[in-house]
């Protein structure tokens, strides 16, 4: 176990603004606790960035752990299947408000019969398998990026352009999440197998392991990396560099052009937790039906949990001996970027890297918004060099031309502009609305 002072205490952003990450420190030393499945599991048919899948099961059907229950091959490569997280029976297929899109989307409600978790697919020998076999398994296993964007992994790994570097993003920037570091501590060997598999599918030799951890913070994992000739690049302790576009600039000094993705400059970035999911899908035949996440609240502290997709948040909380009623609001994901859910029945999904819960005594720091004083903190801290305050003004006036000129589309949604605003203005929603107005004007 690392000594306390081996951890980083705060992030430093542009302009010298600091971000306290003591919340993260508390959970780094907490081993994963497995949460048993709930009696009823709620599995959304879209847990990736692309279109919704179609249900492959009917109400009343029996399903096995890891069995495919939704897919839509005709909808293009951006769609990946979803799988049953339990052995059980399909009770209902109905539309529910999706916690990310906030639209009514289809979910399969499964009554859990037992906690068994025999992998549904056969293992593949990674040394003998062809690139195509491995890529097919990625899709079939429902593997998506676990950093939060849920981009289909098989799409990223089947890149046809020349790729010089595979960057493994172990930055875990969110100030209250520690599940990735914990995974490095507990599942390091499997994770490295996953990284090697990714490199094989991508056909690259240069692997960069980008982490914010100090030397010696995860010693066992570092030794694994060294043994496998994987370079460790230590990134400066900074929140925004966790974004893949900025990570490419930081690691390779290549700037990803606006509107493009890292392959445009010869790089592919994958989250470290995704590497573990890749290894599990190939070596053990596991579908992506569970993941590690960090639950953080002042009541519980930081806890690392291993949870199956479809488990309601209420069940997760109750399992820790905490009543969902003591909370005033709950964000799915990190404290900086996670949307809130209307009630605790909402389920864990593939993109859920964390649960951040606030008790009734913790009022929102943004409750009393004041008039903007144009201090310029927001544009000083912005990691992509746009002007959030000016964008807010343009958005209020519905000035689409100005929004375009101010490059609102380049916002990475990091939330730093709101974080530093002394007038407590939440600028992020204005930026999102601005982006959507520009997008609509182009359609």
């Amino acid at each position: 176990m690392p000594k306390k002072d081996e951890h980083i205490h705060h992030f430093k952003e542009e302009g010298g603004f600091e971000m306290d990450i003591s919340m993260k420190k508390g959970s780094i030393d907490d081993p994963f606790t497995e949460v048993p499945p709930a009696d009823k599991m709620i599995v959304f048919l879209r847990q990736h960035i692309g279109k919704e899948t179609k249900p492959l099961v009917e109400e009343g059907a029996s399903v096995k752990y890891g069995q495919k229950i939704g897919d839509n091959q005709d909808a293009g490569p951006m769609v990946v299947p979803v799988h049953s997280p339990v052995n059980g029976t399909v009770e209902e297929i109905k539309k529910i408000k999706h916690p990310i899109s906030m639209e009514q989307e289809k979910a399969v409600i499964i009554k859990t019969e037992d906690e068994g978790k025999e992998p549904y697919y056969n293992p593949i020998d990674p040394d003998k398998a062809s690139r195509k076999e491995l890529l097919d398994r990625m899709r079939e296993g429902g593997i998506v990026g676990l950093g939060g964007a849920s981009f289909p992994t098989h799409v990223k790994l089947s890149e046809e352009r020349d790729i010089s570097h595979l960057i493994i993003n172990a930055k875990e920037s969110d100030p209250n999440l520690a599940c990735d570091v914990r995974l490095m501590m507990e599942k390091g060997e499997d994770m490295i197998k996953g990284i090697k598999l990714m490199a094989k599918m991508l056909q690259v030799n240069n692997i960069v392991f980008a982490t914010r951890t100090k030397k010696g913070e995860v010693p066992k994992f570092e030794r694994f990396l060294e043994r496998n000739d994987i370079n460790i690049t230590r990134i400066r302790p900074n929140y925004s560099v966790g974004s893949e576009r900025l990570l490419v600039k930081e690691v390779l000094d290549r700037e990803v052009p606006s509107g493009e993705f890292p392959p445009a400059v010869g790089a592919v970035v994958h989250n470290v937790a995704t590497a573990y999911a890749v290894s599990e899908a190939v070596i053990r035949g596991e579908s992506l039906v569970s993941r590690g996440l960090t639950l953080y609240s002042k009541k519980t502290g930081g806890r690392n949990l291993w949870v199956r997709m479809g488990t309601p948040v209420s069940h997760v909380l109750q399992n820790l001996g905490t009543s969902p009623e003591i909370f005033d609001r709950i964000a799915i994901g990190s404290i900086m970027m996670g949307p809130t859910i209307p009630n605790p029945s909402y389920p864990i999904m593939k993109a859920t890297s964390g649960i951040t819960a606030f008790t009734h005594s913790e009022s929102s720091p943004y409750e009393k918004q004041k008039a903007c004083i144009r201090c310029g903190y927001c544009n000083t801290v912005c990691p992509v060099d746009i002007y959030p305050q000016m964008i807010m003004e343009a958005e209020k006036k519905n000035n689409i031309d100005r929004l375009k000129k101010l490059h609102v589309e380049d916002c990475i949604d990091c939330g730093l502009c709101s974080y530093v605003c002394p007038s407590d203005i939440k600028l992020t929603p204005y930026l999102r609305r601005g982006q959507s107005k520009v997008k609509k004007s182009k359609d």
Partner: protein
Amino acid sequence: MKKEESTYKMEKPPHLHIGLHKNELMWKTFLMMCIIALASVIIMGLEALIHILVAIGTVLIVNSSIYSYQVWKGKEPTYESPASPLVAGMIVGLAMPIAGPYEVTAGVALLTILVFKYGQGRYFKRKYLNPAATSKVLLLGLLSIMFFLEDPLDTGMLFHTHHYDWFIIEFGSLANADGFKEAVGFFSRDSISILGIYNVEVELTAAQGLLLWQTHGWIGGASSVVVLIVGTVSAYWLRFKWRIIASMLTTMTVISVATGLYLGGDPILRIAFHVFTGSVIFLMFFMATEPQSTPMPERSQYIFGMTLAILTFVLQLLNVLGGSVIALVILNMATPYLDKIGIKTPYGHKESDGGA
């Protein structure tokens, strides 16, 4: 799950804040200016304290009246804390000439809070002009054109006929310029009465006097060295728009040296005169960086600071008292334009895609 059941408060991210809020920022700014005020009172005496108290008192009376009215009418108060009005009052106090009448200070403070702080904010939804600077230019400008008033310093005018006798752009040493010696005599008197110090033995040069203590001129500029230290600490601690300070200070220094070299004489005295006379240095740190009336893009802040320095310098050469304040108001009017021309090129774009 009931479809529309909502038990939790819904809120958009982020859910974390750095913890530095507007009122705290204002209180800290006020606290830093109190140090400058203390130095000014020590150097200039009780008159300085009265000017500051008159300005702060006027602002507080007006603010609490408006606050009470807004609460009585059931409206959200414009300023829930007196911190921001207090800062405005302190700036007025420190931006007034020590020789001016207290009534003029009260008048400037009244205009500042009522017209250029509350009024401007309400009708334009933003402060385009620096409230204290604009009030001072307006009131002192009006007094200056009232031909029927005499021209002793105690009328608080921007122009004084006896200043026209000075000619600070003639060739040769500035120290020998007509009227300059007389002025320096005012600047560095040999006593600090409030501390009971009379007939200071050490004789200061004109440049040292301008840097260390001035018993004449603007209250906030009584000790340039104190303003430099407190201003630098504040700019770092409270993240003022430091590019304005840096570019104004550099430009003023460069053109002072260039003028000194061209006209002859001591360049250090030139720098001391142009940068430290009156309250240029106070304006540089605490007025020219006022966030609402100054540009946001970094490049625009450099342009703002440089142009402000040049304009101030020209007005100084013309012997206009308070030239820096007039220059600031002019530059404030250019801010909406400057906001458009200095936009940085965002990540992932080429320079040609940059400006907005």
